[in-house]
């Protein structure tokens, strides 16, 4: 472990998140948190839909399915400083399923990592917001992703590095269910368990769909909790659209004895009726009319 002085050198530990451990969320405080995160989630969804609609291309389905997860991470759990993206004590987030970049961008903008107006330049030539996350261009992006099945490994590396330095930071990685067909995910899973990376938490966006159809029809993922347990991970299962369940699971993960995964049941395209569970909206932008309709459903203007 790194000496305490190292921690001190970096100044105090306060980031955005409360850094709570194992706290039980109940009572009015919990209800306020729920309300706050649900409001944020709705707004994030609107940004995502508009962003992709204006760009004319992108991945709405898998961006919308992980909104509550990202909200729980960035607006509840993670210690980070949008004004100082390189703050050494920050927690790290890796979007292993990089095509959900719009969700991440919406969150980062809302946190203040960059101007919200940037969102409307998504995927444009020269934009800070690339089709897939680019760490060199976008403040708050820890590592570039887009080729599936690599982000969890990168998160392992971060967790190893932070542990070597005795830093208390945690690393979070969001993985897709289709993405879990990549062998690289299981290589990382094995290494993380072997190294007992208790500062690493993966979240699985278990929306049941990939591009060519339902995961269970393309290449079934079978019993995912059993798979992860057999690979030595602590498994939690939550409703991935229940912000409190997510926050609680994130808190509980702090106490894991090794790497932990939160398997979040989600709905691809969540929040937009005609996108929900619709595989066609994996990687297709809404038309202008669809965009307007979606924004209406999401309470635009309220």
């Amino acid at each position: 472990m790194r000496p305490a002085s190292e921690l001190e050198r970096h100044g105090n530990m306060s980031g955005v998140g409360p850094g709570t451990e194992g706290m039980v969320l109940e009572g009015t405080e919990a209800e306020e948190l729920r309300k706050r995160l649900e409001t944020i989630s709705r707004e994030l969804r609107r940004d995502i839909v508009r962003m992709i609609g204006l760009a004319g291309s992108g991945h709405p389905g898998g961006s919308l399915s992980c909104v509550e997860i990202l909200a729980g991470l960035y607006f509840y759990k993670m210690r980070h400083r949008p004004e100082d993206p390189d703050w050494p004590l920050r927690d790290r987030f890796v979007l292993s399923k990089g095509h959900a970049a719009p969700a991440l961008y919406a969150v980062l903008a809302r946190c203040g990592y960059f101007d919200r107006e940037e969102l409307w330049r998504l995927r444009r030539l020269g934009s800070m917001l690339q089709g897939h996350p680019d760490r060199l261009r976008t403040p708050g992006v820890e590592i570039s992703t887009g080729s599936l099945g690599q982000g969890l490994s990168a998160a392992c590396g971060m967790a190893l590095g932070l542990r070597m330095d005795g830093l208390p930071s945690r690393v979070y990685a969001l993985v897709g269910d289709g993405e879990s067909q990549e062998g690289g995910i299981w290589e990382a899973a094995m290494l993380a368990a072997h190294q007992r990376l208790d500062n690493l938490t993966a979240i699985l966006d278990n929306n049941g769909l990939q591009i060519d159809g339902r995961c269970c029809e393309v290449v079934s993922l079978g019993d995912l909790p059993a798979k992860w347990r057999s690979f030595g991970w602590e498994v939690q299962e939550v409703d991935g659209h229940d912000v409190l369940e997510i926050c609680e699971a994130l808190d509980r993960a702090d106490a894991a004895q090794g790497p932990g995964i939160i398997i979040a049941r989600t709905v691809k395209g969540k929040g937009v009726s005609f996108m929900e569970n619709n595989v066609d909206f994996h990687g297709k932008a809404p038309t202008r009319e669809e965009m307007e309709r979606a924004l209406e459903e999401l309470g635009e203007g309220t």
Partner: protein
Amino acid sequence: MTEWELRNTRDGYAEALLELGEKDPRIVVLDADLAKSTQTEKFKLRFPERFVDCGVAEQNLMATAAGLAATGKIVFASTFAIFATGRAYDQVRNTIAYSDLNVKICASHGGITVGEDGSSHQALEDITLMRAVPRMKVVVPADYFEAREAVKAVAYLDGPAYVRLGRPKVPVLFGEDYRFRFGKALVMRPGRDVTVIACGYLLHKALLAAEELSGEGIEAEVINLHTVKPLDREGLLESAARTGRVVTCEEHTVHGGVGSAVAELLAEEMPLPMRMVGIRDRFGTSGAAEELVEHYGLGARHIAEAARRLCHGDNGGKPRR
């Protein structure tokens, strides 16, 4: 300017697969969760029992393809070019090619014209990678018809092959009756002043450049190098000997790609001044396909400019110092 009909090279691929599948029961098609994009879905719908989706697992896709081929199948394996050649390089090299199996890797989304998805999805080194693999044949069709015919041709060539398909629609340059001649560079437009060698998306740009040049009195010979490997040494040398100058064009890195293949040939056989239009050690980026073509200097005007400089003797042929 002429109005060009636009069609996808991947549609040509899908069409060829249907034809092949119809008459040859050995044809099997694999994909890695991109059947809609690569267009193998059409084969899947027609011949479900000969289609296998391997999911998001390109390594397994390629080694599984090898195993299938070892049972006598002619296997088409598709995904995006960057994952087919990069993610599964070792499988392609050590299991498919070293075993010399009938796996035809037909990958879509080659090149910078992938567009908005950006760098992680823009294959800019796939030709380099596949050219480096012994026994691998490399074909880069320029339009719908050429794609269709090339796919049918490689199906019956022995051993592994790589066919690079694009994302965007491209001008239709050939017709129903186009006869693809594997390994034979095709002169699209004769000329005496400079040989412009292009393939895939940039062939049309090269033709536009030649028109532009022609207006200035420079007659460019435009060669369609649909087969990048094996290289048509004879054909290229013959043209280069006549014009004395060569420009190569590719939406791809110049390191190890088409320009490099031609440079290797000329250096050993016929040193001549040359310009390479291509991408120079840069990653891709998000943007519209045509915007990116401009941004990376791959447009007709860039090709014309390269040829012009060569023809006007801007240190062409002579040592600089």
